[in-house]
């Protein structure tokens, strides 16, 4: 069995009086894609926001490879090898692909007081990365992000996480608003990332997408984890739906048979 990469222990989160997470234990192993499922408001985003430093937890600990880490900001998370990819927010749309990939860590050429970015290296590496995540279309790396499709933007963000050797890449609903081909692309990027040694957390409402790509499914309901070891190869979409809604077969049948009062 693979090593644990990330372990979150006894994580609790209150937003004021609303309890979003209730004593959650969650692990991701090395080179594993975990699908995180649950209905609206189950606490999925909150859990990964705690992990990515976007919101502080009320209590609980986080371990990376067995070592306790303190994550208070997105910068901390990135420094610990945890990269989060939202639909848009992680990229600067006005800047080019290459400039985004290296933002904050731009390589420099020439005397240091000139502070000159190494464009040649940036564009060359960016081009390679786009191929590596699986973008086959020939997109110049000088293209601004604003001219890219949603799926291509995801690809750029995934490429960046791969290049800077993030151990864990978190994707919160990356296939939202994407067409069929684009979705397939993103799923491919995720698989490629795993094959190159990265772990991923994949959140999506479309269970079929999750089934296509993940190694293990974790289900949340009302701030708690109710199943954390579903093997997509040995269960069906219907099974998982039941766990998500928390109903038995009979209850579900009854619910769909009687019109809502």
């Amino acid at each position, binding site marked *: 069995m693979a090593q644990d990469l990330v372990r979150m222990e006894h994580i609790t989160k209150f937003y004021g009086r609303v309890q979003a997470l209730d004593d959650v234990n969650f692990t991701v192993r090395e080179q594993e894609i975990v699908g995180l499922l649950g209905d609206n408001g189950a606490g999925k985003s909150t859990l990964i926001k705690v992990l990515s430093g976007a919101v502080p937890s009320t209590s609980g600990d986080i371990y990376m490879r067995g070592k306790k880490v303190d994550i208070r900001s997105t910068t901390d998370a990135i420094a610990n090898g945890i990269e989060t990819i939202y639909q848009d927010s992680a990229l*600067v749309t*006005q*800047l080019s692909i290459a*400039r985004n990939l290296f*933002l904050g860590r731009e390589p420099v050429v020439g005397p240091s007081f000139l502070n*000159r970015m190494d464009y040649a290296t940036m564009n060359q590496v960016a081009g390679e990365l786009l191929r590596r995540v699986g973008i086959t279309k020939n997109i110049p790396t000088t293209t601004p992000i604003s001219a890219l*499709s949603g799926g291509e933007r995801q690809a750029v963000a995934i490429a960046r996480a791969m290049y800077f050797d993030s151990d864990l890449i978190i994707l919160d609903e990356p296939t939202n608003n994407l067409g069929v081909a684009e979705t397939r692309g993103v799923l491919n990027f995720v698989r490629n990332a795993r094959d190159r040694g990265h772990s991923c957390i994949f959140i999506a409402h479309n269970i079929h997408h999750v089934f296509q790509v993940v190694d293990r499914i974790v289900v949340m309901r009302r701030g708690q984890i109710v199943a954390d070891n579903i093997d997509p190869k040995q269960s069906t979409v219907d099974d998982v739906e039941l766990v998500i809604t928390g109903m038995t077969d009979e209850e579900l049948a009854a619910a769909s048979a009687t019109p809502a009062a």
Partner: protein
Amino acid sequence: MEHQSLVRRLIAKPEFGPFVLLVVELVVFTAINPTFLSPLNISNTLVFTVELGLIALAMTLLMTAGEFDLSVGAVFGFSPVVMWTLFNQEVMPLELAFLVAIVIAALIGLVNGLFVTRLKIPSFLVTLGMLLVVRGTALFVTDGFPQRTWNAGDQWIAQVLVGDFHIGAFRLYMSLFWFIVVAVLFWYILTNTKFGNWIQASGGNPNAASARGVNVNRTKLILFMLCSAMAALAGIISSIRTSAANPNSGTGYELEVIAMVVIGGTALMGGRGTIVGTVLGVFILRTMRNGIVLVGVPGLAYNIFIGAIILGMMALHYGLERRHQAGN
């Protein structure tokens, strides 16, 4: 196909519209009144153009980072007052007074920046307040009277900043040289350096930028200080050239400078900035001012044309941007 795409790319550049407008202005004004292109007129127009231009260049960087500074006009009036008061009262030599005035201006910028970055107050409000404080101070310390500057001519620093020289029939000032140096320097910073990338990212998506480890606040602080210091430099240059440090001078310059910057294609809300565009914007507005008078339109109508130019150019820039975004 390569050729066609090259032309297309050129047209799609935000600087293309302003460039065409400037050419049209030059052609129309020259056609109506040939003295427009005379060495004397060009020399006279250039003098003040580059003084305002210095501020516009710094404002371009600041606006690209997503902030702007309404206090530059007040600093333009205040800094020469500081310098000449210190010198005339024989507190210190002119070179030192010059340095002190620039440092004080940079500190004004620092205060602007601290209010904006630490207290999260919009730069519109912070720099509006600073405009009043600085202008008020200038008026208060001088009782509203201009300061003497006539003993400037024999000072080397005056020669370095605004000494004049002749090339053919043109009478040029050192300030033109400084304008070119600063324009090239800022262009290099914005397009080629790490810091330039951070400036654009700070304006474009500050959250994403700081998540990548870009120090957005420090970037903005530096630019606020730079902007104020440039306004001070421009004010001092102007005061030496006109032999008057008037506490009222620079009134309204902030809006003219911001207009120059946005006409050139820099986004008011940050993320996108162009030094080349600003240079064009500077010349578009100053040429318009000069040309209107030369072709006999009453000077009072100037603002009508400036307003029309701003509206037209904004329609163009935002149209281009929307087309860009529709492409996804």
